[in-house]
């Protein structure tokens, strides 16, 4: 009966067959063919992959995406931990804070895009007006840096609460006895955090880092709504690039770039997963 586990996994696998496995096979199939609307697809082997890897637009989107995702992790994770540390540990404030932090997570991506447009619209938006006080003319439609930073801060605004909620869950699981022991040993606040809190947060941080990395790699609606990926291609992230190719029915290219894209996400996630599972393992035991 060692393999009865499979019996329980069957429903999930059945649904995933329709929603993941078959579509993925279709993508791989596309990626190996030259597809042109109206004619029969011809098998071309890895030519589409070569084309994608030689395409400077794809490579620029990839680099931009990596810079963005790493930046997101570097800002959201420490910030999330800080916020979690500031939240009340018990009392009526807990439920209120959890609900308040949960609300931004429930705003659809395109509403976030709309908020960004309302806030940054030239002439009467709040943010350009604010920067005008310092004689800086802020314009997402013209300045690539402004546009990139707007998307970046938007993501930080939208998703840091998720990291904070996860860390809060991790903090709640640390027994008070650990802190008392640290106090008796005369550990400083920083040392308590470094040697008691942080190692105990590892498992939730793994989830937080992986979720944020995967999801920031998928960013689509916000840049689409803010500037349509512009100015130039300053906010054309991978998802946007691939979706454009698919929409223009360039399926061979879209399939190949999708597969490379998925491969990169999986490799990075696997590295994070391994690193975070192994680093500092000795400290907790």
């Amino acid at each position, binding site marked *: 009966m060692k393999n009865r*586990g499979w019996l329980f996994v069957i429903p999930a696998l059945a649904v995933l067959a329709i929603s993941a496995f078959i*579509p993925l096979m*279709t*993508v791989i199939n596309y990626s190996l063919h030259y597809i042109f609307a109206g004619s029969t697809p011809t098998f071309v082997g890895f030519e589409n992959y070569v084309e994608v890897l030689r395409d400077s637009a794809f490579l620029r989107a990839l680099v931009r995406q990596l810079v963005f995702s790493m930046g997101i992790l570097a800002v959201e994770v420490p910030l999330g931990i800080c916020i979690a540390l500031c939240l009340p540990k018990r009392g009526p404030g807990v439920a209120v804070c959890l609900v308040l932090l949960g609300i931004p997570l429930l705003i659809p991506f395109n*509403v976030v895009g709309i908020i960004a447009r309302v806030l940054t619209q030239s002439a009467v938006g709040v943010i350009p007006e604010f920067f005008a006080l310092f004689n800086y003319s802020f314009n997402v439609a013209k300045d690539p840096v402004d546009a990139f930073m707007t998307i970046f801060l938007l993501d930080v605004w939208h998703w840091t609460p998720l990291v904070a909620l996860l860390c809060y869950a*991790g903090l709640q699981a640390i027994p008070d006895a650990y802190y008392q022991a640290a106090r008796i040993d005369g550990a400083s606040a920083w040392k308590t955090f470094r040697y008691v809190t942080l190692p105990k947060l590892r498992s939730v941080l793994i989830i937080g880092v992986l979720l944020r990395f995967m999801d920031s790699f998928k960013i689509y609606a916000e840049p689409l709504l803010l500037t349509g990926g512009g100015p130039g291609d300053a906010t054309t992230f991978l998802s946007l690039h691939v979706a454009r190719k698919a929409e223009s029915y360039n399926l061979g290219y879209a399939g190949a770039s999708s597969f490379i894209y998925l491969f990169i*996400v999986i490799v990075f996630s696997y590295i994070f997963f391994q690193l975070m599972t192994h680093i500092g393992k000795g400290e907790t035991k």
Partner: protein
Amino acid sequence: MRKRTVLLIIYLLVLFFPIYWMINTSLKTDNEILKELTLIPKDLTFKNYAEIFTSELWRSSFMNSIVYVCLNVIISLVAAIPAAYAFSRWKFRGSHHLFFWLLTNRMAPAAVFMVPFTELYYTLQIYDTHLAVALAHCLFNIPLAIWILEGFMSGIPREIDETALIDGYSFPRFFAKIFFPLIAPGVGVAAFFCFTFSWIELILAKALTVTNAKPVVVTLTVGIGAEGVRWGLLAAAGVLTMVPGAIVVYFVRNYIARGFALGRV
């Protein structure tokens, strides 16, 4: 201690400023939005909301969203609960690889699957139905639900299963009477996250619907650009899309708080 509270309040103010700004915009006239910057509406108007409530398009969009999101939460949980139980209790052949493979589905960018989904659901003749979107969203929600539930279930000692089975409980009865109540907070947390991610997803929902199942997130994007941008109307619709989510948070808040207290997410 005081310093932390002050920092927290500052953070919450920053967090809610954009939301406040959207509510503020939704209560202004289009003229005021485009002419000047005002912190509170000079000319308070509910016209934008009235327009949405009287429009058949907006009403049906909201209903469509709610229907497929609920459908998705149900499918995800029904499929994920047994799977999570299996992963938390038994090490079976290939379980480790299967678990990582499931997680990789969570990573799959939706843009990748846009075209294949369209083709597949055309073939299955469920294109442009609520079921199509609900199934498509399982792509990222089932792995997430399994992940969350597995954490909760691993926190429940195995001895409970064994004792119950020795006491003569049949497996289904044990699951319904003893195990399920124990993991109820976990199910609440999982349901909350599935609801969230399905509610806010745009790419697949947009690719898989035309008219019959068109969700509110798509109607919102269409509203842009048609007849110039109606900021007030869009902001009002945006505010309304937050309402169902806020209601869900309100109902599951105790579950979530308990789930968080168990330290398992």
